[in-house]
Structure formats: C-alpha cells, structure tokens
C-alpha cells in the first residue's frame, strides 16, 4: 500500500447485490409465504439479496466509487444473475 493511499480518506461503501428481476428467487418466495402465514397479508413480494459494507481508502469520492464499481463487476456480483447498487460516503469515526 503506497504512502499516498495510507493518507487518503477512508470511505464506506454500502453495496446491495440483488437477483435480476427475471431470476426466480425461491428464498424470497419462501419468506413471502412465511409473512403471509403470519397474517402480513398486504405483502406483495419479497426479493432476498446481499448487503456488503466495504471500507477503502481513496483520494476522493469519485475514485472510491470507481474502485467499488470495479469490485462489484469483478467479484461481488455475477452479471449473469445479479445486479448491484452502492453508495459511498466518508467512513464514520469509530
């Protein structure tokens, strides 16, 4: 890790990975029927997905977003079945 990277701002990316609308989601369907059994009858649909928090160092928000986008398309989501959204903000102090 370079010195510049170590001193760069720490960012927090919140990433949602979900199945594409055309992909059947048996987990979501099972959760939906469980909710109906619990009398949440107004529930129309459930889709299950993944939520990831990634902290990273980058010079600015654009650089952080570009890096997270590359992570998503390379590893975190499979474009055959999934799509992803994320936002990036300055990581809160511990």
């Amino acid at each position, binding site marked *: 890790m370079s010195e510049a990277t170590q001193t760069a701002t720490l960012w927090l990316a919140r990433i949602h990975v979900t*199945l*594409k609308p*055309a*992909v*059947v989601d*048996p*987990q979501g369907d*099972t959760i939906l029927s469980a909710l109906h059994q619990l009398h949440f009858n107004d529930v129309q649909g459930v889709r299950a997905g*993944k939520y990831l928090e990634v902290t990273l160092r980058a010079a600015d928000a654009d650089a952080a977003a570009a890096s997270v986008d590359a992570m998503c398309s390379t*590893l*975190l989501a*499979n474009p*055959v*079945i999934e799509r992803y959204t994320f936002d990036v903000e300055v990581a809160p102090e511990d």
Partner: protein
Amino acid sequence: MKFGILVFPGTWSDRDWHHVLTRTLGHEAEYIWHDDRDLHGCDAVIVPGGFAHGDYLRVGAIARFSPVMDAVARFAENGGLVLGSCNGFQILTEAGLLSGALLRNASLSFRCEWVHLRVERADTPFTNACQPGQVLRIPISHGDGNFYLDDAELAALEARGGVVFRYCDAEGNVTPEANPNGSRNNIAGIINERGNVLALMPHPERCCEPELGGTDGRYICDSLVASLAPAAR
C-alpha cells in the same frame, strides 16, 4: 495418460476422482493445489465437487480467482479437456469457461439422491461411449444446482447443441417432476462451443463400481479416456 485433479480448500470429491481414475481405470492422476500456477503436464483436468473456499459470497465465486484457474483457462484455450462436476460446474461458470450460473435449488433443499440423465449429445469427448438419448443413472449432491441463463442466451445454448445432459425420468422423459433443482430446460450438464470443456451437476465419480450402487459414471469416464487415448500413443 495423466489426469490433474484440482483441489481447493473445501473440495471434497478429489479423492473419489483419484480413486476412480487410478484404481478403477488404471491411469495416473495427480492432485493440483489451487495456488499452483501450472498443471504438471496433465492430459486432462478434473474440477471436482465440494465447497471451494466455503462457497462464500456465491458458489465458485472465490475459487475462480485461485491462481490455478489461469492455468486451466490457458489449458482450455489450447484445446485441453476439462471436466467439472458439481462445485466444478459452479466454478467453471463463474470463471466464464462455461455459460450460465447455478442458483440455489428451487426447493431450497440440499438434494442428495440418484437421478436419471438423458444424454443429448454422444459426439463429445465426454460422452462418446454413450448412445444419443441414452439414460444414465448418476447421483447428485448439491444445494445450488439450479442452472440459469436468460431467455436469449438459453435459446442460443440450445441452438448450438450446448446441452449435453438433461434430468429425466427412468424412461428418458424430460419432465418437471424429474428436475431436482429447478434448472431451466432440465439442464444437468453443458459443453462449451469449442467442445472441450464440459460440466455437470451430478457425480459420475460416485458410480463407477457396482459396490456403489451403479456404474453409469463409467460411460463418462470411459469416454474421456477414449478421447485422450490417441494423444497418449
């Protein structure tokens, strides 16, 4: 004739494959650890079942970035034969060596049972010992075997004859009841366009001796051996 059997942390069918290839079929086989960067001069690569890297994130997602997979991609590019089973199928799709993806079983249950497969293509290096339309009885053992491709790509896969095995009943009828995991078009195994990379969810290595309840796995193993035989001469 030497087979290379990939071993990732969490692979579990490597020893079954080794047993079949060496003791049942009498060939040489070598384990290849996932961070190895070459394939030790093997003549064919087996990508076995299991839970490589715990299948964290998605099945096969981490394994496809293991160093050995670059060597496998080069081997396939040069026409080398690659056979994946179960987790091996998932890894090969994640690696882009085969199309599609394997989703959670539609039932959400892990299915460990014998199934029937209809051989759709008997002209591949992995099925040349079969007859077209032959029904094989081979066990499955997976939680994520639900083959998915979108409509357009599925039509393209079917049109080019990429489907090699389909789940069927004992008579060879492809029915929804015979589909153990919700795979589109009952697809159990596919081959790449070039015809040298094939993977299936079932486990041929678990049924190559009568003591194990069936020997239909031999059709696939014997096909592979027959395909390699000219090279070995």
